């Protein structure tokens, strides 16, 4: 009996399942494993030479902590001076009357003197105390003043910083505008340059252009020739033809445009 060509059961199913298994395998490889070690993409960052003013205002400057005020030193109290003791009377053998009188007088004198002394002392003490108090007050005052001054200085500094930042910003804006307008001027002039035929190489001519506030050209002076007079002439003609040159609307900026150094390269 010849071996009949037998039909495999479920042949299509086998093919289908085999493909399915491989698709699952590939899917696991592609999605299951994180093959990614991609570095973070480039990040654009603007660099500011100074923070914009409002932002700075928001940030509260840490106030300088009030210095622990040194306790006013207790003034050394003037020690109470020992009261002059009344001198013990020395019983003397009674002398003569005159003597007694004399002695009495002397005594009186002494007493008076002592009283005077005492008063003077008292006065001096009060004076001293007053002076000390005054000194103390003055010190206090000075300290407060110093504090106030410091605060003022701080605030002034902040203000100044803010104004500085503002000024810097303005300056940068101005510089930007200046560059912008210079570029515009150059562009406008370049549009008018009619390049003479057969100019060899890539010549560069430098001109000093004097402008009027209206944008008219007062004078155009060749400061560095390109070495090719035809090109120099063409540029000069273009400078005059390009009048009026564009100037920034802000008239205060004109000072920077009064005299311009412009370079014209043939192929830029």
């Amino acid at each position, binding site marked *: 009996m010849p*071996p009949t060509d037998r039909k495999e059961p479920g042949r299509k199913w*086998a093919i289908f399942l085999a493909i399915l298994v491989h698709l699952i395998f590939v899917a696991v*490889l592609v999605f299951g494993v994180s093959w990614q070690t991609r*570095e973070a993409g480039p990040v654009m960052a603007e660099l500011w030479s100074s923070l914009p003013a409002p932002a700075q205002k928001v940030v509260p400057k840490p106030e300088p902590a009030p210095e622990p005020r040194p306790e006013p030193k207790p003034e050394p109290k003037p020690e109470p001076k020992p009261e002059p003791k009344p001198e013990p009377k020395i019983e003397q053998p009674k002398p003569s009357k005159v003597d007694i009188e004399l002695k009495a007088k002397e005594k009186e004198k002494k007493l008076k003197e002592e009283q005077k002394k005492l008063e003077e002392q008292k006065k001096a003490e009060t004076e001293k105390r007053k002076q000390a108090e005054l000194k103390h007050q003055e010190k206090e005052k000075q300290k407060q003043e110093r504090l106030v001054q410091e605060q003022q200085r701080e605030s002034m500094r902040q203000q100044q910083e803010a104004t500085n930042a503002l000024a810097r910003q303005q300056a940068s804006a101005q510089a930007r505008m200046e560059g912008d307008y210079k570029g515009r001027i150059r562009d406008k002039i370049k549009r008018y340059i009619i390049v003479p035929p057969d100019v060899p190489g890539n010549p560069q001519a430098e001109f000093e252009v004097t402008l009027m506030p209206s944008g008219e050209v007062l004078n155009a002076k060749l400061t560095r020739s390109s070495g090719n007079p035809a090109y120099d002439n063409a540029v000069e003609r273009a400078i005059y033809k390009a009048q009026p040159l564009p100037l920034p609307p802000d008239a205060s900026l004109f000072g920077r445009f009064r005299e311009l150094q412009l370079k014209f390269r043939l192929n830029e």
Partner: protein
Amino acid sequence: MNVTHDLSFLSLITNASVLVQLVLLVLLLASGLSWYFIFGKLFAIRAAISEADKFEDEFWSGADLNNLYQRVSSGRTQVVGMEKIFEAGFREFLKLKRQGRMDIAVIMEGTRRAMRAACQRELDALEQHLAFLASVGSVSPYIGLFGTVWGIMNAFRSLANVVQATLAHVAPGIAEALIATAMGLFAAIPAVLAYNHFSHDVDRLATRFDSFMEEFSNILQRQANT
């Protein structure tokens, strides 16, 4: 060497050297074929086992052998497995018996030979692609390893031109090389498992066929004597 950090799977493969790509292609083909055979064998062997079960049930239910033979040999259904053995044996038996004046031993010998031939054919059909599975299982890891070694060689060779060698210079090359090994293992592991499983199944079927043949010869011998 252009060091790319984008290790997406596809770019790894497309950036690999030609030989590694070739290895991957071979392995993919081997894997695809082996999976196809795995599923094909799975269905075939399962069908053979269930068919053998069914036929044994029918055979031992005490049905008349002539009726059974009529039904099997009518050609309406494809005859496979145990039915085929039965059909071949019974046909040979009937032919020899019809010739008459023959020794019983000779008749039984012829019948047995016919059954053995049918059994061999059946087993051969069942085992048809198992050898392929075996070779994929044993060889594809080596093929993958070859691709990996080649890829790593390239990766290190390109490192020679670099003054400051970092891991980033070698990593993509090694990664792409290791894909070859992964592919080889992916092809090999199921193939080996399937080969072992199927050869075991086929062995069991062979012993079942053998025992059926012995029992059937006994029955025929008894019938021939009567």
